[in-house]
């Protein structure tokens, strides 16, 4: 019964905790999931806006270069200069050459160009040519190479990346006149400032790619010159302006005025990393809280159980015992006796003795009921002291008491002798105490003792036999103890 109660209590606590856990997890997952969608949408808007801003920055930067190139056309003298003209006056040629050089210096005065020069048919260079570009054509062929690039693209102006495998420079070519080409270049890393905008998120990879998806600039400098990943190209498809959401990343693309594109990739896990952190942390806290609730619940329940057990024990005590003497009451005694008989172990002898005080009524009458109660308590103490814990004692009602014994003596004759010894001891003690104290009232007692037979199904027969022996004593001289003489119940012996 107790175990069932505990199991029920444990089930209730676990059920309650699980319910809290499930409901809370559901709410968290619901809110986090919804928030993830919201954050992805917001991030897409933010990244799109910043990507567009970067595209405008790139356009502005490229336009600045193109305008610097265009300004070289402002001088007619410069425009018509031909370095390969053998008939021209050498001093005049030198002056014009110096003037063009001056103009180029002025046009590039405040900008970081790697190359800014005019290349003539005879490979003469006016302006500033970087060592890298110069070394590419150390054996000549510079003009022809640039002319070829312009022919393949747009002679009015062509942006070019990867010249002879170089990934440091971004080049701009423009035809100046029929025998010369303008060349301007800047380092790819110059675009770092162009790509630096306040809305940039950590983990955001920004690239400038050409039509062949080759990376001209990236905030991850190791990727400059490499190709955009096949997965990114595949996700973007033919999209030139807009955003796509892959399984793992948000990818945004915007096309610049020269056909190059700004491609921005943000891993989704970075977008929702705060949410994921929130979810993990909150789940951890909830698990801890539920565990605390569980532990507290179990501790508190066990405390309640201990308290309840004490109360139940107290009730049980009251229900099973006689209030006055503290011995078992008649009902409990009968129940116990029946149980003993049913469970009677072999090798033991069981007995039942019933006691009744003689002349007790006169005590009540002469000395009052309180005195009578005292006599009853003292007699019950005598019984307890004499029979000890081996025997089960009860007040059966009024001045009647019962003693049920289960002695560890296999043969019945020895049991009888042993029991007789107990009865003698009781009578001796009685006579020395109660018998003496109430001699004037002739207070004594009678008893009848019956053994439990093998064919006794319950306590009733045993009780009846002992009761008969008790009344036998009562009807005779009183103060008599009768014990079954024969185990078959056909006779009895007076002690």
């Amino acid at each position, binding site marked *: 019964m107790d175990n069932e109660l505990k199991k029920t209590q444990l089930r209730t606590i676990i059920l309650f905790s699980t319910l809290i856990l499930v409901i809370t997890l559901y709410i968290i997952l619901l809110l986090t999931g919804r928030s993830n969608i919201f954050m992805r949408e917001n991030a897409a808007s933010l990244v799109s806006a910043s990507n567009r801003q970067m595209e405008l920055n790139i356009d502005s930067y490229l336009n600045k270069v193109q305008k610097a190139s265009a300004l070289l056309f402002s001088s007619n003298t410069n425009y018509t200069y031909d370095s390969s003209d053998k008939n021209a006056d050498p*001093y005049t040629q030198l002056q014009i*050459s110096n003037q063009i050089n001056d103009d180029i210096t002025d046009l590039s005065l405040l900008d*970081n160009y790697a190359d800014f020069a005019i290349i003539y048919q005879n490979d003469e260079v006016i302006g500033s040519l970087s060592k890298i570009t110069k070394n590419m054509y150390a054996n000549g062929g510079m003009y022809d190479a640039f002319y070829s690039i312009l022919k393949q693209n747009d002679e009015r102006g062509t942006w070019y990346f990867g010249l002879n495998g170089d990934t440091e420079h971004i080049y701009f070519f423009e035809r100046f006149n029929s025998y010369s080409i303008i060349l301007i270049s800047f380092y790819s890393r110059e675009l770092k400032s162009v790509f630096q905008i306040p809305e940039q998120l950590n983990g955001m990879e920004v690239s400038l790619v050409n039509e062949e998806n080759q990376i001209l600039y990236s905030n991850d400098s190791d990727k400059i010159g490499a190709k955009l990943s096949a997965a990114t190209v595949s996700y973007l498809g033919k999209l030139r302006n807009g955003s796509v959401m892959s399984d793992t990343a948000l990818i945004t693309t915007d096309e610049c005025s020269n056909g190059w594109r700004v491609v921005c990739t943000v891993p989704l896990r970075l977008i929702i990393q705060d949410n994921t952190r929130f979810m993990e942390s909150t789940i951890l806290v909830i698990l801890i809280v539920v565990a605390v609730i569980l532990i507290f619940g179990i501790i508190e329940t066990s405390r309640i159980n201990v308290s309840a057990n004490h109360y139940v024990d107290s009730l049980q005590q009251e229900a099973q015992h006689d209030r006055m003497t503290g011995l078992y009451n008649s009902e409990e005694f009968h129940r116990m006796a029946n149980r003993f008989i049913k469970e009677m172990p072999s090798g033991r002898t069981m007995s039942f003795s019933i006691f009744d005080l003689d002349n007790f009524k006169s005590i009540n009458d002469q000395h009052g009921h309180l005195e009578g109660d005292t006599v009853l308590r003292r007699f019950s103490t005598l019984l307890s002291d004499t029979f000890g814990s081996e025997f089960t004692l009860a007040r059966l009602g009024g001045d009647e008491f019962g003693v049920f014994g289960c002695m560890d003596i296999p043969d019945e004759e020895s049991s009888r002798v042993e029991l007789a010894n107990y009865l003698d001891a009781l009578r001796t003690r009685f006579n020395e105490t109660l018998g003496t104290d109430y001699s004037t009232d002739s207070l004594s007692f009678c008893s009848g003792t019956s053994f439990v037979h093998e064919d006794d199904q319950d306590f009733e027969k045993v009780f009846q036999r002992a009761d008969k022996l008790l009344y036998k004593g009562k009807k005779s001289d009183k103060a008599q103890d009768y014990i079954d003489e024969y185990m078959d119940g056909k006779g009895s012996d007076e002690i």
Partner: protein
Amino acid sequence: MRRSGKKHNVARFIIAILLFVFFFGFNYYYVVIKPENHTVPTDTTKDTIISFSWWGNDDRHLYTLTGIDAFEEKYPNIEVNCSYNVWNGYERRNRVYMLSGKSPDVMQINYNWIREYSADGSGYYDLNKVSDYIDLKAYSKKDLSYGTSNGVLNAVPIAYNAVVFYYNQDILDQYGLKVPETWDDLFTAASVMNKDGRYPLHLSDKHLFLSVLAHYEQTSGQTLFDEDGKYTGDTDTAAELLKFYKDLFDRQVICLDGKSTDTDFSNGTCAGVGIWASDAANYCTQLEDKGGSPVLSTPPRTSDNDALYGWYVKPATMYAISKNTPYPKESAELLNFLVNDKDMVLLQGTEKGIPVSSQARRILREKDAMNNYDAEAGNYVYSNLDRFETMVPSNENSDIIDAFCDEAARYVYGIADLNTCSQELVDRWTDTLHS
């Protein structure tokens, strides 16, 4: 007994409340407060943005930009905006910066600019004020004296520089010529190789002017400009300069017809170059790559005397801080990084010559990084410091050089006669030096 039970209950209740407050407080901090550090706008993480400018070629631009990346990593709160150009453009850019008062916080400057822009020492920031951030112990007093103007330390030198001469041994051998050491050797060389369209020397305008100046000072025993930068000569002196220039041109020691380029040395059109020691690797490596054999010689002289009279040494370039910088501490940290930091020293190597900073030299020696043409030329300059004159700023003044080249061209091409050009040259120099 019952009171004690009540106390326990209150204690348990308080503990439970504290536990909940702790867990939920921790959760709130972890989820709401702490994440602000994770998603951040990139350009608000830098507290200070400073600017830095220099001149040079591709190699210098690229290793300097890489060095700046390393600096930004070491100093995450400082962002550096870079401005760079080739020499000609940079010189003009610097003038715009200085005259407009918008110069970069840290700048590479030329030796003569200290005289031009900071004669009283107030044109650049006083580096002694930020000496806590610059390891000046790596410099000798003499080193620092080059950057000191009117008692104010305006700049620290990066390396020493002088004009050095390299020749293509293969071409000399082809004509049975010894390595030129005198002006006569060069005229002799020109006379034997002109028939093949070759000429002995390629010189840029500045080095051509310094060569003519050296010849004048060697032959006259007079300096062209005194230590205060004043012109010491007259019209006849200018005429002497122009005449020698024309001599070099007419006898085809040099080529002036617009076809002379700095690649002529590597492609075998000319037999030698007069260059800054810091440019040695640029020229010699190209020649070597094409199978040539560069050989260092002494600058041309009139005789075999031991002194290098007429030839000057100077700090190759220097670093200074703008007098208007709002960030002197951060600028000084960058300057110190550029001259003394191990990463930067190894990136730079001997590209600008043998470093003046003793710390930088020690780093390069430990890494055995002083074994190329820059180092060879740099060591030549270092080992002959006492034989060179100390550069007079006027010798490098771009207006003075431009005026000389203009008048020389007018004279050489017959646009004006010698007297007119000489007078015009003196007038222009006088105007320049007065301004």
